[in-house]
Each structure stands twice: as C-alpha cells, then as structure tokens.
C-alpha cells in the first residue's frame, strides 16, 4: 500500500467544537496550512448528537441546538480554508510532530506538522468502570451511546428505562426517551446533590414528572438475555449501599450517565505530563502541554459542561499553536504551578509559564507601570489569565479566592456553587511580576 505524506503548519486532532475553533483561530493568526483530522465521517464531534438546545448562550448570545452551534464553526472553518481529513483515526504522534493516521481509502497517512492541537474530546465511563454486579444482559447502554443510536442512527434502545447518574447527558436522555415514547422510571444519583445543570433538571425531569432519587445507587442488574430490572438502594454517608433499603424496579433498559473520561491514549503515548485530577494533559495559560509543540483544548483537557467555554479556550490553543510555528512563541520557561486549595477539586491551567529576567527579548517597564513581555512577568495571551476550576461540593454564597505567595491576587463572590458547573477567576498577568518560586492556589469558602 502506498503511503501518503502531507505537510502542515498546524494539525488539529478531532473536529468537535474544540478542534474546529482551534483550527479557525490558527488560520486567523496567520498559519497558512491548517488541517483537522477526524475519525468520524462528519465534523461536529459530540454536538452532532446533542440535538437539544442550550448551546451558544454566552458565545453567540443566542440559544442554539448542538448541530446549529457546530454548524456555525464548520461554516467558518470552510471559509477560512481549513482542510479536513475525515474518516481518519489518529494512531500516534511521533517525536518530530508527525501524526500517523489510518483512512479506509488512503491507507496509512502521515501528516507532518509544526504544531499539533489535541482536541479528541472524551468518552463515557462504562459499567466496567463502576463494577455493578449482576447478570450481563443486553439493554445496558452508556447514555451517550444511546443518544447516538437514537439521534443519529434511528435506533430506539428501550421502552422502560432507569438512568443511573444525574449528569446532563443522563437527564437530557430521560427527556429524549420520554418524548420518543419510553417510560423513564427513575433517575438514580449516588450523591446527595444533582450532578448536572439545574435547568436540565427543570426541563428534562420535572417537566415530565420523572423521579430523581438522590443518595441512591443501582446495586444489581437482573435479566438473562435482556435487562428485566435493576435493584436500587439508598447509600450511607460513605456512599456504600444500605442493602436493607434495596428495592426492585422493573425495566428493560439501564442507561449509565456516570461521567466522562478525557480520551488521552495519544497524549500518554506522546509522553506528555498528565494531571491525575482531570485525567487530561497538564497545560499552561497558552493551552500548551509539557511538549512545547503540542497544545490541547476542549474535553480532552478537562470535562466541560458548556461548549461555549470549550470554544473560547480552543481559540486560545489555536492561536498559540500558530504563534509557536510562526514566531517560536510560547517557549517553555519556568513554571508556577496552579493548585487546588480547600474546597476545590482541580484548577486548569495547572501551571503558568513565566518568562525569565535574562530573556534576550526582555523589555523593561515602559514607564506606564505596565511591563511587557519578559522581565519575569507572566505573559498571558490576553492581559487576564482565566483559571477554570470545579468546587468539591455544592454551596450557597461562596467566595472564590486566588492566592499567590500569601497575597490575594483575585477574589470573587458567587451566589451559589455546584461541582456540576465550572467556575472561573481571572487574574491579571501583571500582578505576578517578579513572582518567584511560588504557586497560585485557588480556594472556595462558603460565606453564608
């Protein structure tokens, strides 16, 4: 079989909202040859199956469905001359930035790129990840797989349904299955709070009187060929099921909506430093990974609940990748870690890159009090660096604080927090001037 070789300035892996936004931004930043490599037969990523509305409220100030939201980026990518290689699964990223992928028509394809953007999204946790006991009948699906079957492939998955997990996908599927004529017996959630967005509880469960059972879990699955029912029980404070409360719900289908895992086989194989908290690559404020020529964005970095956030951070990744190829910036320099303080699960970016005093292109204070590139400053892509994070538990009015070397560098009070809704805090790059051997910590404190 003949090998195909192509040369590009920026190559993006994955044509979901993250990859599309990154590729468009790379072109607008001046990169001439930009390609997206996608394993699916159409661009759009997971949004092709997210036919519900709820996208674009912050990015376009307009509520769009998933296909409409993705469609806007697909159109822009086309207009900007981004090339698209579909039906092509990336298998490996070599040390010199060559991407190896396989395509049914072309065979093995090598794409050599000056900078690579990882935008592979995530996959769902399965029954195996949860270790639910019982038989192994047909009728157990992850919610996203069921969503794809129903919304793209015209295959209905069941008639009487129990959903485990109150994440957004689970709730959206509860409504979808109900509208398609199925009966959703319950949505079962092990935590004592909702995992997804409140608006989804209102519009997907309450609207259809679907019971939400908090503090419960599925203890067993029964059925020989097809699911015949599940046993559920309350859990104690350590989230262990209390078997004295076990009861049976007859159903033919169990949907699992129990979390997503960033899809990082390629990242690990490329030897990129990973975060144990997010299961994604560690990145700095330019969305740059520990390998200077590889950038990452979207769900591959951390699981996002809003596609709008994905688009914004992916543009940054695309711009950075183009700048890396065109200007050799950002270089990797000394790094300040950003860590999760009390009440916080993780912070992203995990590190901020600082330019050293000795930098050749260091320019001194310009007299207006603002330092520009170099001089031990952190030079964000914008003046403000946005730290994204998740809290550990829901709370009422909460103060979110970013500390650096014993100083408060940013603070914000929000009316309520929820682990299902990503929070952010903006820090001014200049504040960190001269920050040495220190770290930035984000903390959440409930104030009543």
């Amino acid at each position, binding site marked *: 079989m003949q090998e195909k070789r192509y040369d590009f300035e920026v190559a993006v892996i994955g044509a979901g909202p993250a990859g599309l936004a990154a590729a468009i931004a790379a072109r607008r930043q001046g990169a001439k040859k930009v390609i997206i490599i996608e394993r699916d*037969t*159409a*661009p*759009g990523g997971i949004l092709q199956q997210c*036919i*519900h*509305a709820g996208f674009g409220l912050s990015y376009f100030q307009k*509520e769009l*469905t*998933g*296909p*409409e939201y*993705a*469609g806007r980026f*697909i*159109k822009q990518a*086309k207009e900007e001359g981004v090339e*698209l290689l*579909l039906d092509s699964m990336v298998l490996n990223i070599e040390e010199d930035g060559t991407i190896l992928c396989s395509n049914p028509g072309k065979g093995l394809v090598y794409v050599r790129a000056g900078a690579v953007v990882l935008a592979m999204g995530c996959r769902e946790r399965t029954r195996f990840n949860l270790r639910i006991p019982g038989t192994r009948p047909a009728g157990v699906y992850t919610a996203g797989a069921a969503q794809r079957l*129903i*919304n*793209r*492939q*015209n295959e209905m998955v069941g008639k009487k349904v129990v959903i485990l997990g109150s994440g957004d996908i689970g709730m959206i599927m509860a409504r979808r299955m109900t*509208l*398609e*004529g199925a009966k959703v017996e319950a949505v079962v959630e092990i935590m004592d709070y909702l995992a997804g*967005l*409140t*608006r989804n*509880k*209102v*519009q997907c469960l309450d*609207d259809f009187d679907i019971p939400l059972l908090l503090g419960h879990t599925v203890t067993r699955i029964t059925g020989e060929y097809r699911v015949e029912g599940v046993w559920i029980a309350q859990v104690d404070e350590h989230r262990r099921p209390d078997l004295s409360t076990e009861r049976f719900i007859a159903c033919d289908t169990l949907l699992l909506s129990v979390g997503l895992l960033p899809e990082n086989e390629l990242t690990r194989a490329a030897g990129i430093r990973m975060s144990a908290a997010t299961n994604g690559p560690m990145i700095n404020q330019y969305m740059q990974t520990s390998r200077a020529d590889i950038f990452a964005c979207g769900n591959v970095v951390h699981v996002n609940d809003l596609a709008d956030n994905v688009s914004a951070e992916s543009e940054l990744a695309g711009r950075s990748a183009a700048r890396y190829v065109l200007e050799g910036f950002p270089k990797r320099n000394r790094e300040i870690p950003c860590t999760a303080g009390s009440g916080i699960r993780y912070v992203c970016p995990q590190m901020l890159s600082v330019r050293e005093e000795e930098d050749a292109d260091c320019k001194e204070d310009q007299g207006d009090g603002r330092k520009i590139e170099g001089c031990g400053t952190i030079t964000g892509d914008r003046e403000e660096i946005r730290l994204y994070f998740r809290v550990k538990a829901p709370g009422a009015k909460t103060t979110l604080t970013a500390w650096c070397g014993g100083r408060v560098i940013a603070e914000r009070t929000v*009316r*309520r927090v929820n682990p299902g*809704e990503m929070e952010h805090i903006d820090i001014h790059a200049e504040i960190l001037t001269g920050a040495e051997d220190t770290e930035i910590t984000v903390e959440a404190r409930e104030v009543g």
Partner: protein
Amino acid sequence: MREQEIICTICPAGCHIQVSGQGQDIKSIEGYSCPRGKEYAENEFLCPVRTLTTTVKVDGAEEPLLAVRTAKPIPKSKLFECMDIIRKERFRVPIEQYQVLIKDLAGTGIDLIACSERKGDPYDI
C-alpha cells in the same frame, strides 16, 4: 389560589421564585434577582413554553435522521401531540438549514425547521 415554586433557568444562578395567583392573575411573585427572571416566572406560571428539539427521517442522505426544532417555543402541553405528528413524516434531500419542514405544527402557529442542511458534500453539516 395556586402557588408554584419556579426555578429560573435563564442563567446558572437558578433562583427559586415563588409565584401565587389565580387563572391569568398573578397575586405575588418573590425570589427573583433580575427583571428577566421575573418575566420568566410570570410566563412559566401562566403558560409554560419549551422549544421542542427532535429528529425527522430523511431519505437520500448518508445519515437517516436530521435534527429539527420548533422555530419558537411552543406550549409545554403540546409537546407530545407535536411528537406524534413529526414521527409520521419523511423528508427528502436537499434540505436547507432553517427550511420549514412542517408549517403551523399542531395548530400552535409555529413551524418545525431543520437545524442543519442535508446535501451530499461531507463538509456540509
């Protein structure tokens, strides 16, 4: 008197708003934090509406289904009636984005429109 607690879904703050009234008459409304929330709670109390999103069968395209939605929100009480109508329909390519597929869906005065176009080019959505 009818009393209802409405969770505002306009923004992530998710204010709990208490509304009480009778028929088309609102007596009291409390717990909102901004005018948009107040308006939302009023509408939700008097006539809750939702945008219906679903799929229709399409012939002649690579994929068998096309995402569709109502052009505007429709009364919540009409959701299932609309689904019954939509389920029976079949369409053929080419379909433009935002093309009207069903006019005046279930007498709501609101049309069912295509969320994406369907042609042959794989770069098209």
